[in-house]
């Protein structure tokens, strides 16, 4: 009804309403009452006299806001002022992160040696010296000796006396946990002798 009073109905709706109103006295009364009520509401005063103090207070607040704006602009942080420098810095950080991720992926692949892959897949793996040699030069080149502690020249007595441990597949599955074993393996590869020699020495020792 309000839309009809305001002529906001679509033409099709307006036609339908007009046809209906010709036959329905109740709706005619309803429409008239709606129009009367909306007219009464429209006669409500739209404005109110402004107290003079309101305008004065308003102007003070506006000037405060303007002063705050100026202060804000003077305190603009450096990164808002030098957008190109920020862009370059962001790109450098991004390149660094991507590079580190690439390095991490290659290292993970090299640590995930064929022996471990074989252990994971359940296939029998060769002896550790063969596994180490299959790791290839990439593994040797990328694995740096641990800093701060020299690798032991000789294996601990309990390991040297039990060379069969090196053939044990469960141990190979947890290779990363056996720091002594890792040190021995690295030392052997870095010094460059034939892995089979080290195995023979341990076996004979």
């Amino acid at each position, binding site marked *: 009804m309000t839309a009809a009073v305001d002529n906001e109905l679509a033409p099709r709706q307006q036609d339908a309403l007009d046809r209906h109103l010709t036959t329905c006295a109740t709706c005619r009364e309803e429409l008239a009452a709606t129009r009367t009520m*909306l007219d009464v*509401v429209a006669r*409500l005063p739209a404005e109110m006299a402004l107290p003079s103090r309101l305008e004065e*207070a308003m*102007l003070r*607040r506006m000037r405060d806001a303007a002063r705050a*704006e100026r202060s804000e602009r003077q305190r603009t942080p450096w990164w808002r002022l030098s957008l190109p420098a920020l862009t370059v810095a962001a790109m450098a950080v991004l390149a660094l992160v991507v590079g580190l991720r690439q390095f991490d992926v290659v290292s993970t692949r090299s640590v995930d040696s064929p022996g471990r892959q074989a252990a994971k897949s359940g296939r029998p793996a060769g002896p550790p010296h063969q596994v180490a040699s299959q790791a290839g030069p990439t593994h040797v080149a990328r694995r740096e000796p641990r800093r701060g502690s020299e690798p032991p020249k000789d294996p601990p007595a309990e390991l040297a006396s039990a060379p069969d441990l090196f053939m044990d597949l469960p141990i190979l599955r947890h290779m990363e946990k056996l720091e002594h074993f890792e040190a021995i393996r690295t030392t052997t590869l870095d010094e460059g002798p034939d892995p089979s020699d080290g195995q023979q020495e341990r076996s004979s020792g």
Partner: protein
Amino acid sequence: MTPAGVHGKVSHMRTEPGDPALAAPVPAEATARAAADPDVALMLRLQAGDESAFQDLFRKYAPRVLQLARRFVGSQAQAEELTQDVFVQIFRFRHRYKPQSRLVTWVFTIATNLCLNELRRPERQLRVDLWDRRDAEDRPEEPPLPDPAAVTPEEGAATRELAQQLEAAVGALPPKQRAALLLSRVDGLAYRDVGEAIGCSEGAVKALLFRATQTLKRSLRDFV
């Protein structure tokens, strides 16, 4: 919502017309619109840092904003605070105004949002409860409805009675219905502009107006 101008530290610093720190570049299209619409010209002056433009804007729209706010919050003091907040927002966001939209719609969008937010505040709910518990005779008298046709004392009294009842009935409407009714009927905004101001579609505005009118007809059936 304490007005800084009343309780805060008063600043005597003036913004100079054309203050470059507050100015923004004016596109050619906006200049063309300003020539056709005095409201746009007013806003462009304000965007350029002209303090007198703000005064002109305030004098033009504040009486309507104040009346709208009073019909939302009920008290004159709170309505004045809200009016100040509206114009502080207008000043702060003056660079966001686009000449493509009508200034009156933009002003009433800000005003309606602040009024609706004020009604949603929890402490406001408490105030309304306390207000409702007061006796009717303690409340300040609502402004009379001006009616040039009311010449006799009897008619004048009837008009005042109707105005009071109408103000009370409008004040009892749900906030969105009240906003739609006042913006549409009293401030003369089109349905599309009302929808923009209260954040709904034209269809929703029609529905709000219909419900508000039905409620008013029930409330005022003895007077209208």
